[in-house]
């Protein structure tokens, strides 16, 4: 009751004229101040440092960043796939109402595959070479639902048809090495979708594929996301791929989100110097003989994090303030944030 009153009175209602008519959608996944450290005898690697974001249902979020920026780690921690003994995770991860970090091993297993699913980068190694595609899909189904063998097989066939594998009946009994890279990747998507997950995590699923097949798989993923109403978190270091599939983009550097916003905003009006430098260093119809601009320096050493802005040592516009104090995410425009002290002075 009280809640209703406040929403109707609050000035926010002006921004959202439909707020009273449709129920407020709560996020499918919510990550709050996530820190992930890998501890070994020699060093502690600060892989993820205070990452927060919300993912709305049916949204596709792309996390982009260079190798070692913590994008895959962020994703794997949402499924708690990191080696438990070496990893220290703090913060909050909530997926579909489940607090992932508080669940027992048994509970998290029920979540994996059923509500959160994942597709991997290498379709060759992510499928077991000694079992048929059909067997691997039915295994994933039967991990969660007590169905008969024939029922599981029927569903496996449906899944292969869902991911548009031609002559699915015969492909059911095929071994991974008998399929092409693109088909293998589709088969892996079929395994991941076997229990109709609400959240699909994709770890550079198109990186290992040919450019032509890459587009097909991206289009397929986008169609499936729409048909099944899934939320998708897509990790990539390919900005072209991100532009193709993303609703929202999070740019990560040294384990932090440095820019977050709609795909259009981030790619068209990048606010953070890192995002700008990254976009400038891609091929997009420059003169043939012009060298591509590069970002100088080396990726941040995650064992010894610098004080202040982590990108400052490589940043072209950094000031002394940047080396002293770490910036936090501030609004650039509506629903578009960046973590940089100089946002207002940059144009």
């Amino acid at each position, binding site marked *: 009751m009280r809640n209703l009153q406040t929403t109707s009175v609050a000035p926010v209602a002006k921004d959202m004229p439909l707020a009273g008519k449709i129920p407020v959608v709560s996020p499918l996944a919510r990550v709050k101040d996530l820190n992930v450290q890998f501890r070994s005898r020699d060093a502690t690697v600060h892989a993820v440092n205070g990452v927060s974001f919300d993912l709305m249902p049916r949204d596709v979020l792309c996390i982009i960043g260079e190798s070692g920026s913590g994008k895959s780690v962020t994703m794997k921690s949402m499924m708690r796939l990191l080696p438990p003994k070496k990893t220290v995770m703090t913060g909050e991860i909530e997926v579909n109402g489940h607090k992932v970090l508080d669940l027992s091993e048994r509970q998290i297993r029920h979540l994996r595959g059923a509500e959160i699913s*994942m597709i*991997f980068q290498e379709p060759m190694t992510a499928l*077991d070479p000694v079992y048929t595609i059909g067997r691997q899909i039915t295994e994933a189904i039967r991990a969660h639902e007590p169905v008969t063998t024939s029922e599981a097989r029927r569903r496996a066939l449906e899944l292969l048809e869902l991911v548009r594998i031609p002559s699915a009946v015969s492909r059911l009994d095929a071994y991974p090495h008998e399929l092409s890279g693109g088909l293998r990747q589709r088969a*892996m998507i079929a395994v991941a979708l076997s229990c109709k997950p609400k959240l699909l995590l994709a770890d550079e699923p198109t990186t290992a594929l040919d450019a032509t097949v890459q587009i097909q798989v991206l289009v397929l993923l986008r169609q499936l996301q729409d048909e099944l109403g899934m939320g998708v978190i897509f990790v990539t270091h390919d900005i072209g791929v991100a532009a193709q599939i993303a609703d929202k983009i999070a740019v990560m550097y040294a384990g932090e989100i440095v820019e977050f916003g709609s795909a259009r905003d981030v790619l068209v009006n990048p606010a953070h110097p890192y995002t700008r430098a990254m976009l400038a260093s891609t091929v997009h119809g420059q003169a043939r003989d012009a060298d591509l601009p590069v970002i100088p320096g080396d990726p941040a050493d995650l064992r010894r994090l610098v004080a202040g802005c982590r990108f400052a040592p490589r940043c072209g516009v950094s000031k002394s303030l940047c080396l002293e104090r770490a910036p936090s995410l501030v609004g650039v425009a509506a629903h578009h944030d960046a973590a940089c002290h100089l946002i207002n002075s940059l144009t």
Partner: protein
Amino acid sequence: MTDITTGNTITFQGPPAVSGGAEARSRGYWAGVARRLRHDRFTLFFLALALLIILGALIAPWLGLPDPFQTSMARRLKPIGFKGHLLGTDELGRDLFSRLVYGGRTSLLLGIVPVVLATLIGGLLGVVAGFFGRGVNMLIMRVMDVFYAFPSVLLAVAISGTLGGGILNGLIALTLVFIPSLCRIAESATVQIRALDYIEAARATGASNWSIIRTHVIGNVLTPVVVYASSLISVAVLLGAGLSFLGLGVEPPTPDWGQMLSSLRQSIYVQPLICALPGLAIFLTSLSFNFISDGLRRAMDVKA
């Protein structure tokens, strides 16, 4: 309805390419192994020989052979082809062919059972050690290293010497001898597999540790372990015969090739050919299992 239509399009689309491929595919892995074995005449010959020896041992009582325990002072050490005795007689006048066939029972028992048991026990220990790593691995593999420190013959003799003679103790001794090497093979294969993406992918679909071990680890470890185990059978036949030769395995008067070799050895200057026969049986059995193992390795290697 849709099923029928899709079924139609498949047969319609391109019979030469699609259905041919589908047929080869549906046969599966083991069918492929069998197909490659069928073209390997050399291995087939030794497979037939081994099967003959095994079959003879299995149905020995129904072959109508002379009693292998019937001694005769008058017919000692008769040569090959002596009337009524196909391969002559031994130092107590017992029919040698009959004793060789019956002897195959114990020799093969000592050759096959320890390997099977050691594959199960050692393989499982190795998989567990490799999969869980750290402390578990340390514990299991260091214990194996202790066994590894002894030469296998010496270890077999020591164990069976401590336990005393008899077939059962011989089996136990040989099983213990083979566990460490099989454990090590399974462990190293598991460690390689554990790091692969499909294990993580299986975990991402909600599979538990044990179901991952049951399907993905054992499925992939099986080939190297089985190939190695099959090569151990010939070693086990030799070792088992060796134990009996030393009087540790099978006790007389039960016929056994090693023990026959040991007792006939004293007559080597009287009937050298007869004395060599149990040795020949050991040699042929060991050889055939060796070649079968090689053939199996070639057939099971999908990449070749």
